[in-house]
């Protein structure tokens, strides 16, 4: 096995250009996702799914307490949307943009629950669906704590980001990272990325962004750490990310114990039913009954 490879998505420098979405679609031949105008923001793909393997979220931050206004200027310098001044009247302080992607979890629920072995862990420690094995059972879809993988209904199978497994095999970086003009999406050995991310978050905090935080970087979290982690500037749920995700199979032993208890109870209930009614008056019209089926 080679080194574990990963993505570090530094949302503080994301400009929302969606080059990652386009590059991903181009390289991976991902079908269009509807050309929908969602009327909520400049987001027109909405969420990750079978046909959206990179999703750029646009968050309109409401105006908050006056002291924080000072940071808005600094944000402009960081490459944020330059229309801050005009947005005062509708109560918007600024934009947050973030390119979301499959997290390639250390403990991946989709991989754990896949009954066919279609989902597998690659030599880069990423999680990939084998399209020639997947039978479209759909179990991975509700298993994912991030809502990443989905079934492509016209096709019948499940699809998600592969971290460009084919490009990695050829020694290339994934298409989204290659296309990202601001290096918001960084690809590399996960250990290096984690060190780099720590340095970046420290620097941002020193520069007056105390809300900067890493998401999915800790190997001790509920999914054992993400192979694709993020630097966020607000709470994860604001970006549509679960604040404290857990791999569902963590509780699987307990689930089987409860189910085993219920199974024994069922067997016991049937046994009791037969024991308690056995002595009852069973009118037995001759032995003809026995032998009806034997």
């Amino acid at each position, binding site marked *: 096995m080679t080194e574990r490879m990963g993505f570090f998505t530094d949302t503080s420098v994301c400009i929302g250009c969606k080059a990652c979405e386009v590059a991903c679609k181009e390289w991976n031949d991902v079908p269009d996702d509807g050309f929908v105008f*969602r009327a909520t923001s400049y987001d027109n793909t909405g*969420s990750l*799914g079978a046909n959206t393997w990179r999703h750029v979220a646009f968050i309109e931050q409401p105006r908050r307490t006056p002291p924080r206004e000072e940071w808005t200027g600094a944000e402009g310098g960081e490459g944020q949307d330059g229309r801050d001044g005009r947005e005062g009247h509708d109560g918007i302080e600024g934009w947050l943009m973030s390119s979301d992607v499959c997290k390639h979890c250390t403990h991946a*629920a989709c991989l*754990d*629950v*896949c*009954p*066919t072995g279609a989902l597998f862990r690659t030599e880069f420690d990423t999680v990939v669906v084998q399209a020639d*094995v*997947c*039978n*479209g059972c*759909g*179990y991975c*879809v*509700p*298993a*994912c704590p991030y*809502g990443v*993988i*989905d*079934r492509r209904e016209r*096709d019948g*199978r*499940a699809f998600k980001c592969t971290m460009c497994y084919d490009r990695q095999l050829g020694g290339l970086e994934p298409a989204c990272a290659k296309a990202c003009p601001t290096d918001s999406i960084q690809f590399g050995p996960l250990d290096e990325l984690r060190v780099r991310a720590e340095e970046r978050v*420290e620097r941002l905090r020193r520069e007056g962004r105390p809300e900067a*935080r890493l998401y999915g970087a*800790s190997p001790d*979290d509920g999914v054992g750490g993400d192979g694709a982690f993020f630097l966020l500037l607000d709470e994860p*749920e*604001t970006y*549509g990310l679960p*604040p*404290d*995700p*857990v791999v*569902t*199979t963590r*509780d699987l032993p307990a*689930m089987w114990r*409860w*189910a085993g*208890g*219920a*199974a*024994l109870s*069922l*067997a016991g*209930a*049937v*046994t009791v*039913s*037969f024991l*308690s*009614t056995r002595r009852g008056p069973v009118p*037995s019209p001759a032995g003809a*009954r026995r032998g*009806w*089926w034997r």
Partner: protein
Amino acid sequence: MVPEAEFRSYYGQPIIKSPVWHEPHMPAYLYLGGLSGAASMMAAAARISGHDRLALTARLTAAAGATVGAGFLVAELGRPERFLNMLRVFKPTSPMSMGSWLLAAHSGLTALAATAALAPVLPASAATAVLRVPSVAAVLPVAGDAATMAAALTGPLMSTYTAVLLADTAVPVWHEAHRELPFLFAGSALASAGAAGMLTAPRAEAGPARAVAVLGAAVETVAGAVMERRLGMLGEPYQRGKAGGRMRTARALTVGGGLLAVVAGRSRVLTGLCGLALTAGALFTRFAVLEAGRASAADPRYTVVPQRRRLDAGNPASVPAPSR
């Protein structure tokens, strides 16, 4: 009542994906698998206790439930022609993999048991010729009994593994209900199988089936009530909207059917009504659980609020990163 919790989200969009499983396939399978499992247990008990007509109908019910249920499962797949890929691996971390193996074993055993029971009365034809080969005919009754006893081992698991199947997801009202769901499904399966036994066996032999139905209805009702109470805020999807309506209908039918089973006695009409009510109740329970799962997945509240509470209570699934 739990106060409405404040939470933030991305334009109110769901965080997790809703289950893609269809109606009626998925809930119908949950019902049929449960029915088959409990019926196979009943078949074994009836065989031992000498309720031979009940044993026969329970064998047939178990086989029919498993076979038709498997059909629904295959139809549910995005690529039904690849259903055999389910048996490509044996994967303990996947309840669906375990369930596929269990269903394969259980449906095989129940089919053998049913075939053995029916062999003497099947019409002679090319398809049944193999059953009349002397050596086959000689071992078939013994094999059928052995299969019935073996299916009494797979049966209880058939009735309850589906609860693990649902609980082993990120769907909040399924995952957090992993204690009660197996009992809800076990009770529902008992009520279904008891109802089927009451409807199909002669009244003289239906006593144990009636007892199974009453016990099942009681377990189903209590497990459902305990589940909704313990889940707190996460119990809401089981109580509100479409799922809530189905859940209440299920409970009314189950309680009504259970009470009717106690008093039905020798009345054919009451027995029929009771069997139908319990069957409908079991079906409504499964449709309600699927709908509640969808509702809880569609509303980010049910994903965010419990996780945020965990974090705020300083009790995260995650350990904070060292730098914090």
